[in-house]
């Protein structure tokens, strides 16, 4: 979600900057004359001696009653959107609670931190895993895990992931009565000296 928003907004701002900067450069170097093409009539600049924004253009709508409210509203919307975007980068979502429903018998609330610790401890018990860190994200009823594993020497990554899936995540789903625990796993390597067979 955040990835998509970030990329859409960055693409939008990038496109605006690129188009504005590029169109100024095209007119400034008088490319239409050198490269023999004609610009459309709505092109904002007439040639290298034109200016970026004439006083007449700048004050064109100043007399209209709608102008200043619209300018202020647009600036406010942009500023608020930027603020929201900024805050979204700083926030790291972490699931505080996982809710387990037992139908008529009621429900149990599990602390997210407890489940994270349990998952990490189970993962570290797997062969080939030196350390592990787990973060829960998602929603209370449908949590998702982000797992980071530090591999020991002689670990087989394929096996580690299969084990993690078959033992750790499946066990967690069973004990927390979850339908499933989608997980994103990153495997890192631990720098160590190689052991050589003489």
């Amino acid at each position, binding site marked *: 979600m955040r990835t998509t928003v970030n990329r859409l907004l960055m693409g939008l701002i990038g496109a605006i900057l690129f188009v504005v900067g590029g169109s100024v450069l095209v007119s400034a170097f008088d490319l239409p004359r050198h490269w023999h093409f004609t610009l459309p009539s709505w092109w904002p600049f007439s040639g290298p001696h034109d200016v970026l924004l004439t006083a007449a253009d700048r004050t064109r709508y100043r007399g209209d009653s709608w102008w200043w409210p619209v300018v202020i509203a647009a600036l406010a919307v942009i500023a608020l959107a930027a603020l929201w975007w900024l805050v979204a980068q700083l926030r790291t979502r972490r699931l505080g609670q996982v809710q387990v429903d037992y139908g008529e018998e009621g429900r149990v609330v599990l602390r997210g931190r407890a489940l994270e610790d349990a998952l990490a401890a189970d993962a570290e018990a797997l062969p080939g895993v030196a350390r592990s860190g787990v973060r829960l994200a998602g929603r209370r009823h449908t949590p998702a895990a982000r797992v980071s594993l530090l591999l020991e020497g002689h670990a087989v990554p*394929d096996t580690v992931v299969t084990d*993690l899936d078959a033992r750790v995540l499946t066990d967690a789903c069973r004990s927390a009565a979850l339908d499933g625990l989608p997980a994103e796993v990153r495997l890192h*390597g631990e720098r160590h000296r*190689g052991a050589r*067979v003489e």
Partner: protein
Amino acid sequence: MTDPGAEPPGTARPPGGSGTSGVSGPASGAGSGTSGTASGPASGTSGSGAHRAADPRDRGGDAGTGDPGHRDLDPGDPAERDRTTGGGDDPAGAGPVPPLNARVPEEHAEPGPRPGGRGKRFWSPRRLPALITALLVLAGSGLLLYDVAAVRAGRRAMAWRVRVARELATRPLDDTWVLAGAALAAALGLWLLVLAATPGLRQVLAMRPGPGRIRAGLDRDAAALVLRDRALEVPGVQSVRVAVGRRRAKVRAESHFRALDDVRDDLDSVLGDARRGLGLQRPPRLSLAVRRAGKG
């Protein structure tokens, strides 16, 4: 949905893959030079830093040493070799590969069947660039908003706004400052577009999806360490340097006893196993060079 078990990994690559990752080099600020590297200085004989870069020129120096073991598997001009085997879009690696290269275990590439969809590439959330962009937009729009509102409330405009308005209306387009500003804006815009369109996280290799709802990625450094550890188990191997790129893993081993051909054959099969054990969606193809320790 292609079954990864049905064909060698080279064919599973979508067209244009190389183009995308090529562009993302500058985006991730890392470039291809940062391929996962690990040197195995078990004997301490080899300098670790100088040979790390996955740069074909890097190999040029080695090729001329006249060592038969090295030349066999790594024939000819390195640049030429890159064109024949390293192009990456060559389906199933069936291009004009020098015959001895057939021993490089590309036929071992059969990944074990794992149900589920394709392992997709990891996409960076691009937090830091987004943060900086958001900060700049917020600062600019907030400042302008404040000043516009202040003028509406009957105060005088700030000096910078008067000055900017004057400069905008007087400086011609071919003024140096205008040109510099426009070039900067265009370059920044292009950079943002590249950041927005490329996945980044070139360090992470996507693993094959398993039966569960698990999505795994292996760091190139970790893959290099795994390959190095396995290679060091082969008798006769004194030290190994492994550089794992996104498409190719270069393994350079130094042997201090046994016939080089035997060592190479053992390395071939061991590394083929290890490569399958990485569980990658697109296992990098191996290029293996073995030479006698202490030469070159």
